[in-house]
C-alpha cells in the first residue's frame, strides 16, 4: 500500500491539472492581494478633513438647537408610548466617527462593525444558544475585515482540492490507463485507497500554502496601510485553527472528489453534481427549516468558521387564529459540522469502493 501510495503521490504532483491548480491558487493570491490593495486603503487626508469639517458644522448646529431637537425627540417617543432611550434620543449628539469614512482593518473592529451594522440580532431560544451565537458572531471570521473576506476565498481552495481529486481518477478511467494499472496491481481495493489517500495527502500542501499566501498577502497590504487592527496572539491562534480545519476539509474534499470521480467516471459530471448540490443547498436552505443543520454546505461552514448560525421562523396562532411568527436562531457547532462532512465523505467513499471493486474496466 505504501509503495502504491508513493507512486500515486508522485503521479498526482506530476499531473498538469495539479500544476494548473497551483498556478490558479497563485493567481487567486495575486488577485486577492490586488483587490485588497485597491479596496481597503484608509481614508485620505482630504477625506478626513472633509469629514472633520462636516462634523464641526453639525456640532455647531447641535450646540445651537440641540436642546430643542432633544425635546422634540422625547415628545415623539412619548407619543409612541416609548422611552426616550428606546426612541434613540440619547444618541443624537454628533460624533466624529459618524463622519469619517469607515476603514477596513485586517482584524475585525467591533466598534466599527457595531456602528456599520448595528448590534447583531440574537433570537436564541435559551441562554446556551445565546452564548454560542454571540461567540460565533464575535469570531474574527465575522464582520467587515480582511480576515473575514479570506474566509470566502478559502472555499475556492476547497473547490480546487475537489477538482484535483475528481480529475485524478477520471483522467485515468477515461484514458484507459486504469486498465493497464490493474494489470500491474489487480487488488482493486488497494488501488482505490492508494488513489484516495494520495489525493487527500497531495492536496494538503496546495491548500495549506495557498491559504498561508492569502493570509500573508492580506496581512502585507493592511500592514502597509497601518490598518492591521487589534492583532493579538489570540487572533493568530484563531487563524491557525482555521487553517488546520481548512486543510482537513481540503483533504476530505479531495478524497470525496476521488469517490465521485470513481462513481461517475467523468470529471464534468462529478464537479457539476457538486455544484448543483451546493447551489441547491444555498438557494433553498431556508425551505429545509431546522433540517438545514444537516445540509453539506451548512456543515462545511460550521466546520470552517468554528460554528454556524442559521435562523428559522417559529409560528404560533394567536387568540384570533392568526399566526404570529418569530425568528429563532439555531447553532451548528464545529464538531457537528465536521462530523457531518466526514460522514458524507465516508458514505460516498464506501459506495465508490464497492463500485470500483466490482465494475468492469474497459
Amino acid at each position: 500500500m505504501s509503495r502504491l501510495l508513493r507512486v500515486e503521490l508522485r503521479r498526482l504532483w506530476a499531473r498538469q491539472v495539479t500544476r494548473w491548480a497551483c498556478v490558479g491558487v497563485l493567481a487567486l493570491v495575486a488577485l486577492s492581494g490586488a483587490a485588497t490593495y485597491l479596496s481597503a486603503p484608509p481614508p485620505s487626508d482630504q477625506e478626513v478633513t472633509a469629514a472633520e469639517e462636516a462634523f464641526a458644522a453639525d456640532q455647531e448646529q447641535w450646540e445651537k438647537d440641540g436642546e430643542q431637537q432633544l425635546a422634540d425627540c422625547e415628545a415623539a417617543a412619548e407619543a409612541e408610548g416609548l422611552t426616550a432611550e428606546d426612541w434613540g434620543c440619547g444618541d443624537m449628539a454628533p460624533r466624529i466617527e459618524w463622519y469619517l469614512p469607515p476603514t477596513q482593518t485586517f482584524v475585525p473592529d467591533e466598534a466599527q462593525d457595531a456602528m456599520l451594522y448595528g448590534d447583531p440580532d440574537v433570537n436564541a431560544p435559551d441562554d446556551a444558544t445565546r452564548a454560542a451565537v454571540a461567540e460565533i458572531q464575535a469570531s474574527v471570521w465575522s464582520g467587515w475585515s480582511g480576515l473575514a473576506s479570506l474566509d470566502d476565498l478559502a472555499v475556492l481552495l476547497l473547490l480546487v482540492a475537489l477538482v484535483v481529486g475528481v480529475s485524478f481518477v477520471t483522467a485515468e478511467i477515461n484514458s484507459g490507463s486504469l486498465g493497464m494499472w490493474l494489470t500491474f496491481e489487480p487488488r482493486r481495493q488497494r488501488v482505490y485507497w492508494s488513489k484516495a489517500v494520495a489525493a487527500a495527502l497531495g492536496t494538503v500542501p496546495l491548500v495549506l500554502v495557498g491559504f498561508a499566501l492569502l493570509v500573508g498577502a492580506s496581512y502585507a497590504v493592511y500592514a502597509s496601510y497601518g490598518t492591521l487592527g487589534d492583532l493579538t496572539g489570540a487572533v493568530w491562534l484563531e487563524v491557525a485553527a482555521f487553517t488546520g480545519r481548512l486543510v482537513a476539509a481540503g483533504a476530505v474534499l479531495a478524497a470525496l472528489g476521488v469517490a465521485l470521480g470513481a462513481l461517475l467516471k467523468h470529471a464534468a459530471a462529478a464537479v457539476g453534481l457538486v455544484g448543483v448540490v451546493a447551489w441547491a443547498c444555498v438557494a433553498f436552505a431556508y425551505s429545509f427549516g431546522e433540517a438545514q443543520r444537516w445540509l453539506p454546505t451548512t456543515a462545511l461552514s460550521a466546520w470552517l468558521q468554528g460554528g454556524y448560525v442559521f435562523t428559522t421562523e417559529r409560528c404560533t396562532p394567536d387568540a384570533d387564529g392568526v399566526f404570529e411568527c418569530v425568528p429563532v436562531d439555531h447553532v451548528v457547532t464545529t464538531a457537528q459540522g465536521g462530523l457531518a462532512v466526514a460522514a458524507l465523505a465516508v458514505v460516498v467513499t464506501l459506495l465508490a469502493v464497492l463500485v470500483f471493486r466490482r465494475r468492469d474496466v474497459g
Partner: protein
Amino acid sequence: MAVLDGARGGGGLAIETRGLRKTYRSVRGRSVGVEGLDLQVPVGGVHGFLGPNGSGKTTTIRMLLGLVRPDRGTATIFGHEVPKRLPEVVGRVGAIVESPKFFPAFSARRNLRLLADAIDAPAGRVDAVIDEVGLTGRAKDKYKGYSLGMKQRLAIAATLLKDPDLLIFDEPTNGLDPAGIREIRQTMRGLADQGKTVLVSSHILAEVEQIADTVSIVARGRLVAAGRVADLIGAGSATGSVRLRVAPADLTIATSVLETTGLLVRREHDALLVDGAADPAAVNRTLGERGVWVRELTPLQADLESVFLGLTAHETPGGHTHKGDRTKRGGPSPEPAHAAAPAPTVEGEA
C-alpha cells in the same frame, strides 16, 4: 475439446478456461460476449487466439486479467484461479489489451517509471526495456506525441518490466505499417524463443500463421477449433484443390471434361479452380487424354485463413458485438471459404 500437445507433453498449461461466460447488459437487452469458452494455452511458444470481430477474444483476455468479471466458469493462469488468485500470479503476466493506454501528458519514461515503482522493479529496468524496444531516443517525449507504432512498442516495454513468463497481446499490430507489423511479429517470436508463453489475439491470420505454434479459433464466444497450426492446415489441405491454366479456347472443354469425372470446377479469371482433386497428376492426365494441354497446374495449400474462414463463415457477429470489440477496425469479412475445416480438432468432433 482436445488437450493441446504442449499440455500433453508435460509442459502444462499457461492458461486454461472452463465454461467461461460473460454477458453484457445494455438498453437493447443482454448480449453474449463469451459463451462457455474452454480454452487451453500450453506453456511456451506462441499461441494464436483467433476469431472474427465480436467473437469474444478481448472479453476473454479481460476476464483473464481481472478487468471484467465472468458470469460463470473458471479460468486459471499457471494453475492459479483468476481473478481470485490473480495477485499471486500477476507478476508473471504482461499484457496489452487492445490499444496501448498510458497517461498522455507523461513521457514514456515517466509512464514506465510509475508502473515499475508499483511493482518494485529493479533500478535500471525502465531504461533497459525502453532500450529493448528501441525507444531510447524518444523516452523523454510525451506519450501523446507518439506514433501508433511507438505506442505499441512502449506497451510492449511495459509488459517486459515484470520479465513475465506469459505475455498477452491483444491485436498488437492494429494500425501499424508493414515494418511495424514485422517488428512486433519478430518481437513476439523472439520472446517465445526465450521460453516465454505468448498469447496473441488477432484477426490478421497471415501474421499469426507465421509465428504461432498453436492456435485457438473462437466464434460467437465459443471455441470452434484448437491445435497446432500445422495440424489445422494439414487437415484443411486433405480435400485437395488445384489451380490450372489452359489455352483460353480450351477453358470450356476443360471444365466439362473435369466435371464429367466428378470434380468441382470454378472459373477464376483465366484459370480454373478444381476442388476434390486428390491427385493433381490425374487431373493433368485426364485433360491430356482429351487433347487439352495444361499450361500451369498448382496444388493449393490450405492456409490458416482458409481454415479460419471455413470454421467461422457461418458465425456472423451481428447481435453479439460487445463494447470491447465494437471499437475495432478492419479484419476479414467472414466470406464462404473453399477449404474444408480441420476435422481432428474441431469442437464436437475431437
